[in-house]
């Protein structure tokens, strides 16, 4: 079936089986490789992207539900000249090791900061449930707090 949506601000339409997970449409049809496959069951968060600003685990989200919606992937997180506060904070704290799960964490964090601009440690514990096997959680927590600071500074 033909499905239309915007991705990272650009209108896009694809002709695929509507039950195909959005993840594979993004990765293999639209060739945006930043969104990762981890488990295919929404259990690890590596495939996290935004649909209408909400963090979605795209491995378990049929593409047909994206009809007419706005999708953002890691490739479109930063808009304009400036890098997104979450990515900026990730660089400042030198978070990634292997790096594979990091786009999912950054997308989950960006959505969290829209919901809770200044998250406490408990907010972070309750909301960031992705899996990182390199276990970069210690730096991630620092980066999430730092991202909130950068973001607040930009608004002021």
């Amino acid at each position, binding site marked *: 079936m033909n499905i239309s949506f915007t991705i990272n601000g650009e209108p896009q339409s694809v002709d695929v089986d509507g039950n195909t997970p959005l993840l594979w449409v993004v990765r293999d049809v639209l060739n945006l490789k930043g969104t990762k496959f981890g488990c295919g069951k929404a259990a690890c968060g*590596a495939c996290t992207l935004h649909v209408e600003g909400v963090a979605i685990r795209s491995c378990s989200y049929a593409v047909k539900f994206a009809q007419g919606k706005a999708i953002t992937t890691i490739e479109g997180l930063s808009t304009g000249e400036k890098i997104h506060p979450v990515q900026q904070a990730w660089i400042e704290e030198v978070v990634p090791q*292997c790096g594979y799960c990091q786009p999912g964490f950054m997308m989950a964090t960006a959505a969290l900061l829209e919901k809770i601009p200044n998250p406490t440690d408990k907010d972070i514990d309750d909301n960031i449930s*992705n899996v990182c*096997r390199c276990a*970069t959680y210690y730096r991630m927590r620092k980066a999430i707090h730092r991202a909130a600071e950068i973001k607040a500074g930009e608004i002021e």
Partner: protein
Amino acid sequence: MTNTEKKKKKGFSRRKFLVRSSVGLGVIVGAGYLSRNLVRRYLAGFANTAELPYTNSVGPNVWFEITTDNQLILHSPKVEMGQGTFTGLAQMAADELEVPIEKISVVHAASETGNIDPFSTGGSTSISGLWQPLRELAATMREMLKGEAAKLLGVAASSLSLKDGVISSGDTSMTYGEVVAQVKEWTVPDTPPLKDIKDYKYIGKPIQRIDLTDKVLGTPMFGIDSTLPDMLYGAVARPNTIGAKFVDADISAAEGMPGVVKIVKEEDFVGVVAKSRTEAENAKNAIKVTWESEREWASADIEEMIQVGKGDPIVIQKEGKAKSLLADGEDVITAEFKSPIGAHAQLEPNGSLAFVEADKATVMISTQVVNLTRSEVAERLGMEVEQVNIQPTYLGGGFGRRLHTPNAVQTAVMSKAVGKPVKCFFNRKEEFQNDTFRPPTHHVLKAKLSENGMIEAIEHNVSSGDVMFGSPLFPAVIESVLGADVGAWRGGMIQYRKIPNFRAISWRVKLPFATSWWRSLGLLANTFAIESFIDELALKAGKDPVQFRLDHTKNDEAGKRLSAVIREAAEKSGYTDEVKNGMAMGFAASTDANTPVAQVVEVSIENEQIKVHKVTCVIDPGIAVNPDQVRAQCEGAIIMGMSASMFEKMEVKNSELSPTIYGPYQMALMRHAPKEIDVVILENAEKPGAVGEPPLGPIGAAIANAVFRLTGQRLREMPFSLT
């Protein structure tokens, strides 16, 4: 100079640079040095010190390229799986080449460049193994460029000065790129002396990871991100039970399903090639495979096998009369510990992209064993290894899972069958059920205390499934050469060698499923057992656990380094045996691959769960090429070790290994991670040592020792469970 250093020097003197001109690339410089009896030397190194002397690579050995626009490309024989090796290598090359680090990019050497490691990336040996050769190669290349610049400028080489990749003489100057553009015949100088360590600009500094920006922007770099024009997608039916062998497959239901291009049925597997991943997976699920297995397995069967006293014992360490002293008597203290089957659970599944053409094959893959991947693909395709090019990619986690990659063979076979590039990756269930697991272990410890509360004799027995034995990386003959599985007993020896009588015994068990390397190998479980027992002995002797360890540490080089990390960890953390405000501390130390590590944890019990608040980690890896990445490795290893100690466990039921998904396979997540990790780096050795694995050692025991102080319960089995 030690014997090992002498041997290395001899190897270097045979080094021969190869210089080739290459369109658009400027110059390609490489080196190769030969070594006889590679396997033996590797194993001897591994067995004694777990340090891999970087021995040899195969083929023309392209290390460096300098482009005419003055960029430098380093072809790394080691792969980047998160450990930060590329950054460390760039620092080493930049310092000896006198170029700004921004001008250096590091790429994975494709096998066609020849500069691939004959064994693997693993064992925490990449930086330590390349420390000497890479700096010497870079220094030699610097002198080579200088020599050619002198000829081009018509001045004496001694009058030239070097800065930031620019060679100057008076008012005239040339960039490395400009030299490269003009030289056709190169003269290779003798290897110059290396710079003094204090003169390095990058080595020893917390340089930002060179792959940081790409990883933050989501740039395609992993095996699963590889693409080729006209690429198709594969899926292979994989067994879900232990010991299942492929017999036959009924493909009738899968044929003609949407997107299916071809069903590939071979003697040993069946796969689908389709136009999309989803279509390939759907068609694979419609195939009815007949598997054959000899018997059924359950967790209880495996536990029954993994027991000290069963299997083949090999004494791996012996001093004094531990055996007779611990033979009997009421005063012999004994304790048992266990660890479960562990999964790698790396986030990027196994898989590859292969394109097999009439006379050549290309495979893009996340692998820790480029050479083995290549030889297995070549053998199956009936090609010469030179016809197969393995292009390693960044790994979405290694941890030992990619030390064997037979999936590349299956993908190549499917590509050959359709004449197009095929990409095929495991799904998560297949990944969990076809893992090469961390073997379960059982430990029996015995000791005797003297009247003054010192350990008179101690013995550690470990029963484990294989780690390194049975791997296609090594010829079977090594089993008889080595006797015991070096991987299984890693961390299993007694490090307190002031004890007059000690013994360590490894009991080998062959399990019915694949077991293999898992970051730090036996270190985590062995240290959990030994360091918990040492804690018990200290309490029994009525001694402070820190002082007790120091009292039994020998006054030799290794002992002094171990004592130093123990003292520093106690001091930095303010270690105390007292429980304050529901919080207790736990202490443990280990020595792995010559790197001593001591850790102190602060733990409480919240909602009947163990909560780790703070970890102090003191590590002595010798020279820390990149202190920030040493810290990062410690932080990650600590939480990964916590995860394995507190949560992770695979079970066997009706021959099926489970869980098969994250969540049920419980792991440490953000909410479990300590809020504070204080890493202290001591540098009491004159070269860089192992970093990636040693900090996994003490964490399990440190937590268990803290829990004992809090609850009086001695944790004897991983994953920990409070009663």
